[in-house]
C-alpha cells in the first residue's frame, strides 16, 4: 500500500514490491541479496536470526488478520471441540501454528490432542470444502474466501471458530525483516519504509468510524494484478467484517509480544532461545515519542 500511495503522490514508488508464492523462496532471495527487506512470518524471522542469518525485525506488517475456520455444517462449536480433529496450518514457523498451542494450552489441552497437517494456504479452502480436514488456519484473505459465495455462485461453506483477537489479542503474523547490511548502509531508506507503513496504517483507520472509505479504497487498489490479485469483494469483506479482523496500527516491535512468541515457539520446537529480543530486532526506527501523520491522500490523481 505504501508503494501504491507513494506512486500516486510522488509519481514514482521508491520501493519495489516483489510478490512470492511461498516463504522458502523469500528466504532464499533475502539471504542471497536479491531483496533488501521482506514481510515474513515472525517465528521464521526469529529462527533465521538464531541460526546466524544477518536479518533484523524492524516493524510489523499488521496485527491479527488470521482466523480458524471450520465447515459450517461441522459440530465444532468451541475450541475444546477440536480434540481429535484434523487442523491444517501453513508452516511450523508460523504464528498460526503457535496460536494453536496457546488456544489449547489455555483450555488444559495440548497440541497432541489434535491432528495437525502442514498445508499451503491456497489449498486450504478446497480441503475444508471436501471435508478432508476439520479446520484450517491461515492468514486472510484465504480464510474469508470460504465464507463467501464463489465465482460460480456456490454459497460459502466456512464458519469462523475464532478470530485471532479472541485468543491472542494483538496477534502478530508477518513482520518486516531487513538485511543487516541494508540497515547499516541505507538507514534513511529503511526509515522511509517504516514511516510509510506506519502512515499507511494510520491512513487506513483515519476514517474507520465514518464509513471506512479508506479501507474500501485500499481493498480496490490492492486487489489489482500488481499486488494481491484477488477479487476486490473478498478484500472489502476482510477489511470490514468485522473491522478489527485485521489491524494496521500498533505496529511497533514490542518486547513483551515477542517474548510471548518465543514461549510458544520453544514449545513448538522452532526456536531455542539462544538469541534474545535484542538479537533479532532493531527498534531504533521507531524512537519513543515519534508521532507520524496519516497520508494526506483521498484518491487517484
Amino acid at each position: 500500500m505504501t508503494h501504491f500511495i507513494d506512486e500516486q503522490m510522488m509519481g514514482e514508488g521508491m520501493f519495489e514490491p516483489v510478490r512470492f508464492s511461498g516463504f522458502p523462496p523469500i528466504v532464499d532471495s533475502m539471504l542471497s541479496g536479491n531483496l533488501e527487506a521482506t514481510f515474513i512470518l515472525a517465528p521464521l524471522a526469529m529462527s533465521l536470526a538464531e541460526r546466524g542469518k544477518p536479518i533484523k525485525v524492524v516493524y510489523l506488517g499488521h496485527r491479527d488478520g488470521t482466523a480458524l475456520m471450520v465447515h459450517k455444517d461441522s459440530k465444532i462449536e468451541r475450541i475444546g471441540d477440536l480434540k481429535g480433529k484434523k487442523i491444517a496450518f501453513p508452516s511450523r514457523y508460523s504464528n498460526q501454528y503457535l496460536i494453536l498451542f496457546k488456544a489449547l494450552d489455555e483450555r488444559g489441552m495440548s497440541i497432541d490432542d489434535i491432528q495437525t497437517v502442514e498445508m499451503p494456504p491456497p489449498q486450504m479452502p478446497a480441503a475444508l470444502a471436501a471435508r478432508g480436514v476439520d479446520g484450517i488456519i491461515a492468514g486472510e484473505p484465504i480464510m474469508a474466501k470460504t465464507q463467501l459465495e464463489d465465482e460460480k455462485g456456490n454459497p460459502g461453506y466456512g464458519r469462523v471458530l475464532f478470530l485471532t483477537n479472541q485468543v491472542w489479542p494483538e496477534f502478530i503474523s508477518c513482520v518486516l525483516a531487513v538485511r543487516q547490511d541494508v540497515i547499516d548502509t541505507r538507514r534513511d531508506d529503511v526509515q522511509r519504509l517504516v514511516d510509510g507503513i506506519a502512515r499507511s496504517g494510520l491512513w487506513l483507520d483515519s476514517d474507520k468510524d465514518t464509513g471506512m472509505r479508506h479501507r474500501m479504497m485500499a481493498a480496490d487498489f490492492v486487489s489489482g494484478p500488481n499486488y494481491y490479485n484477488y477479487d476486490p469483494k473478498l478484500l472489502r469483506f476482510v477489511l470490514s467484517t468485522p473491522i478489527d479482523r485485521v489491524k494496521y496500527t500498533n505496529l511497533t516491535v514490542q518486547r513483551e509480544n515477542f517474548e510471548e512468541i518465543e514461549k510458544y515457539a520453544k514449545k513448538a520446537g522452532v526456536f531455542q532461545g539462544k538469541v534474545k529480543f535484542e538479537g533479532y530486532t532493531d527498534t531504533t526506527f521507531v524512537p519513543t515519542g515519534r508521532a507520524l501523520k496519516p497520508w494526506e491522500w483521498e484518491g487517484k490523481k
Partner: protein
Amino acid sequence: MTFGRAVLIGAVAWVSLITGLHAALNWGVFDSPPAGREARAPFRVGYLPVT
C-alpha cells in the same frame, strides 16, 4: 565512385540513421535519468499476498 558503391554507402548510412532514431525515440537510450534517480539502488520488498 561507382554507382554500386554509392548505393551501398547510402544504404548503410540510412540503416544507421534509422537504427539511431529508433534507439533514441523508442528505447530512450540517450535520455538523461530523471532527477533524483541517478544513483538510487533498488529497494525490493518481498511479500506474500496473505496477511
